[in-house]
């Protein structure tokens, strides 16, 4: 199966909230397979969300082990249906780029540790905790399912330094 073309902003599909999956039927399995194939095709891609190939359903594929930053903590290649962040801890600043927003990177605040749950392709509910690179990838991809791009989360550089305020 060939890899799908990546939907690029300003395509409106990237700003839509995707519908949850209720039945894992042939159609959903095909869409999941397309997503996985597309992530495998782009050798640098460690995560992809369904709307990035034009499917407005809640499926993401991730593989943090493809990048050396994710080697220490990762759960390998995953297809996740209806992924959800249950809990998070502490914040890290990352600089992110996205296949759907080429030639642009920005500073984003993300949780360092997250607990996620999802449905696997067999319909079983799964849950795990992760941190660092894989946690960032998951947050970035789950955001796509809600029409949120990393641009929506950029923090201004100037606020990195203290604002001049009189506390007296």
């Amino acid at each position, binding site marked *: 199966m060939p890899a799908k073309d990546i939907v690029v902003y300003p395509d409106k599909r990237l700003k839509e909230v995707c519908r949850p999956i209720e039945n894992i039927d042939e159609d959903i399995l095909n869409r999941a397979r397309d997503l996985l194939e597309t992530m495998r095709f782009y050798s640098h891609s460690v995560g992809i969300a369904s709307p990035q190939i034009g499917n407005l359903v809640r499926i993401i594929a991730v593989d943090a082990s493809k990048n050396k930053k994710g080697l220490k903590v990762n759960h390998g290649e995953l297809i996740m249906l209806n992924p959800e962040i249950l809990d998070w801890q502490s914040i890290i600043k990352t600089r992110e780029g996205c296949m759907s927003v080429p030639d642009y990177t920005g500073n984003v605040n993300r949780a360092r540790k997250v607990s996620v749950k999802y449905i696997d392709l067999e319909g079983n509910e799964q849950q795990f905790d992760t941190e660092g690179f894989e946690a960032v990838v998951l947050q970035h991809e789950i955001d796509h399912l809600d029409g949120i791009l990393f641009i929506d989360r950029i923090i201004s550089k100037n606020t990195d330094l*203290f604002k001049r305020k009189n506390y007296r």
Partner: protein
Amino acid sequence: MKNFFYAITVIGKDKPGIVAGVAEVLYEKGFSIEDSSSTLLKDQFSMILIVSVKENISILELKKSFYKVRTDLNMSVSVRRIETEELKELENKREENLFMVSVYGSDKPGIVYGVSDEFAKHKINIVDLRTRVTKGENPLYVMIMEVDAPHDITEETLTKLLNKTCSKLGVDYSVRKVETYEL
């Protein structure tokens, strides 16, 4: 089609309407804002812009078009042409090796000079720099930088380098590698 590029800086006492005033002139003249950064330094609002336009406009004419902004808003405006060769260099840039560096301590002369001079000697390029000094009896000086270092420089070697310079200056420092995640 070939575009013509200019660098514009605008600075003056802060008040509402500066960005709108400058943007209006650029819009009316058919300019695109390619890259820009604006911020408040003390009470001075400062804009730096790289703009492009389809037709070749003389520096004098461009300066004249800002007459209203200069007089009504009491801003100083400077304009410089950017040659095509300079832009080509920008396109051929190598992959970056970025670090965030914070240097801070009691205010004293020579912090910016000491650190930047050491960086220059090691071909470490400062790509973003902000400094601020607090008010009060013992002012605190803070310098936050993003630097692009040659590829053989690691977080460890950069830390060693800063340790030497900052001990001499009697200030604290920290280094963080900037990781870009292409997702």
